């Protein structure tokens, strides 16, 4: 009888211990499964004058996140996309929503320089780490502490074309024709200053209102310079300018800044012989011959059925930088940990090595491209590389 009671007590005690241990195991498992995701916001433009770029940036971001399985340093990643509408008021509302409601700690975008300048005080105050999508206005980078400027500043972006035009093409006079807004002044200002630095002369600078459809008055007024460097922000403007330039028989050769975007893949094939031999500058084209780029292009083509352009690459690298920074911090996405971690990075990207200055300006290669006809297609062939470009004011 006594033995029976002892056995019963032992069994009951064993069950209680087992139940307790099992419960602890469940609690532990649940706790592991509920690790808070790292929220990355992306303020892109799917409507408005640069609506064609929003989906392209999105493609680059998502490819990189899929390669990382939407995870870094043991934490899941949640991407939250918003449409800024290429409008400062809409962008401001969406930024507020991403930061205050969605609680993102890192944000990619906005794209447009004017909108960056408009949102800069608010974003700085919120201590959210912001990444530019193309080139950043230098005052934003210098005066605010929350930006990472990849691939660089608008002023420094295309300076190398000024050097190339003087040193290698032998041009001694140049004029510029560009969109009449902040980034236009910066981009072409950099080209003009570089050209003058070498001893060249800028004959005239034309500033064309955004949204101009007919460039013929500006083309008729083209001075007899060795070249005209162009930058136009509006969709299709580069193709329109070149077509009208050719139609009017203007002889002054065109140098295209932002050539990979202005003459993106389909537009290049449509323009065809009109752009054969044309030269320009950019930080990327799918034709760059590096093993990492070939892998990137193959992966992008496999997923999206087309070749990546500069927009896709920039967004892909922005995301790579964020992931590398989070790896370095062990998944800590707080501003005070992540920003210094990113500034200390030296990473390889499909367009070349990337590091950062203390102010957050990316140090990247810039390339001169020439339009050639290769294997039945018009391509941007890289013909010259300028390494480690930064803004001289940094």
């Amino acid at each position: 009888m006594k033995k029976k009671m002892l056995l019963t007590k032992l069994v009951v005690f064993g069950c209680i211990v087992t139940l307790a241990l099992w419960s602890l195991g469940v609690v532990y498992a649940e706790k592991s499964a509920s690790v808070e995701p790292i929220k990355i916001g992306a303020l892109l433009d799917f409507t408005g004058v640069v609506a064609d770029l929003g989906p392209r940036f999105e493609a680059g971001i998502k490819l990189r996140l899929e390669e990382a399985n939407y995870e870094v340093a043991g934490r899941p990643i949640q991407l939250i996309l918003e449409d800024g509408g290429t409008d400062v008021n809409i962008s401001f509302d969406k930024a507020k929503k991403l930061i205050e409601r969605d609680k993102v700690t890192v944000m990619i975008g906005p794209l447009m320089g004017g909108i960056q300048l408009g949102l800069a005080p608010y974003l700085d105050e919120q201590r959210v780490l912001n990444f530019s999508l193309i080139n950043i206005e230098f005052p934003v980078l210098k005066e605010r502490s929350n930006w990472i400027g990849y691939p660089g500043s608008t002023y420094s972006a295309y300076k190398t074309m000024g050097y190339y035009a003087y040193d290698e093409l032998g041009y001694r006079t140049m004029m510029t024709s560009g969109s009449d807004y902040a980034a236009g002044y910066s981009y072409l200002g950099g080209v003009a200053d570089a050209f003058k630095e070498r001893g060249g002369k800028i004959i005239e600078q034309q500033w064309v209102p955004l949204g101009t459809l007919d460039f013929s008055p500006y083309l008729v007024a083209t001075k007899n310079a060795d070249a005209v460097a162009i930058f136009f922000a509006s969709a299709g403007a580069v193709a329109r300018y070149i077509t009208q330039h050719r139609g009017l028989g203007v002889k002054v050769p065109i140098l295209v800044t932002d050539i990979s975007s202005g003459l993106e893949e389909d537009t290049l094939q449509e323009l065809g012989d009109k752009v054969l031999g044309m030269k320009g500058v950019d930080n990327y084209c799918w034709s760059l011959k590096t093993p990492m780029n070939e892998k990137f292009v193959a992966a992008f083509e496999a997923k999206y059925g087309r070749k990546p352009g500069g927009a896709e690459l920039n967004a892909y690298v922005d995301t790579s930088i964020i992931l590398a920074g989070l790896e370095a911090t062990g998944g800590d996405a707080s501003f005070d940990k992540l920003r210094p971690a990113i500034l200390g990075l030296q990473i390889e990207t499909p367009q070349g090595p990337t590091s950062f200055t203390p102010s957050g300006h990316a140090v990247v290669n810039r390339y001169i491209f020439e339009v050639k006809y290769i294997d039945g297609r018009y391509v941007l062939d890289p013909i010259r590389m300028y390494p480690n470009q930064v803004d001289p004011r940094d």
Partner: protein
Amino acid sequence: MDVFVLNLLNGISWGSILFLVASGLSLILGVMGILNLTHGAMYMVGAFVGWSIAVQYGLSFWLAALIGGLSAGLISLVIERGFLRHLYKQLNEQVLLTFGLVHILINSTIWIWGARSRAPFTTPFLSGSVSIMGWSYPMTRIAIIVIGGLLATGLWWLTNKTRVGAMVRAGMDDREMTMGLGINLPLVSVGVFFLGAFLAGFAGVIGAQVLGVYPGLAMDILLLALVVVIIGGVGSVGGALLGSMVIGIVDSFGKALFPNFAMFTIYLAMVVSLSVRPRGLLGRKI
């Protein structure tokens, strides 16, 4: 002198594109009293449809222009029959409705064709140039001027020398009296609406030879068309022609002579015109 002539020709060709768009808008506003803000979107739709026909499928450019116009006309018919006919004489509601439809049409276009802009395209016959005072001048612009002139002549003949044109003018002058005389003015109005939208879509393809094709055209071209109608006057083909030539030439010479004020020259012309003739240079009373 050569620069003057070139800028004049550029202004006339630019004005011809604007005439193709604005003539339809002016007629619709004059006959039906409808301020149709989707008119710019019809230009855009015609341009994209035309691009698909001429570039994507490699068919005839002129077929592309015709189908571009028909597409715009048919979409406009749906808009008129489905929505606008319930809003006669309600200007605020028309503006709100058509403005909303513009965004729907732009986003639908992006959904179908993508947001990428397309380079200017033309027919091989017009891809060359002629020599004018030592300059090479593109055949495309000459063709635009000729087409604009032919269309202006055709519209003038239609509105002034045909029975249908008489009905249109009578409807613009006194709608109730015209209907009282047994004329089926609603049917005439729908025909005018279709014609106006057809012209916009047709203009989209003709204009694509110089301007290319992109979704933002819907708003960019609408703004200019409205300025033309304000200057030229409502309901007048002659007014649309005069207004478009004024804008084309002022814009061309304004950019050439006063580049720092290029953004303002056409609006300055509009302000001056309104101060002198508030009804427009050849406008009818709405």
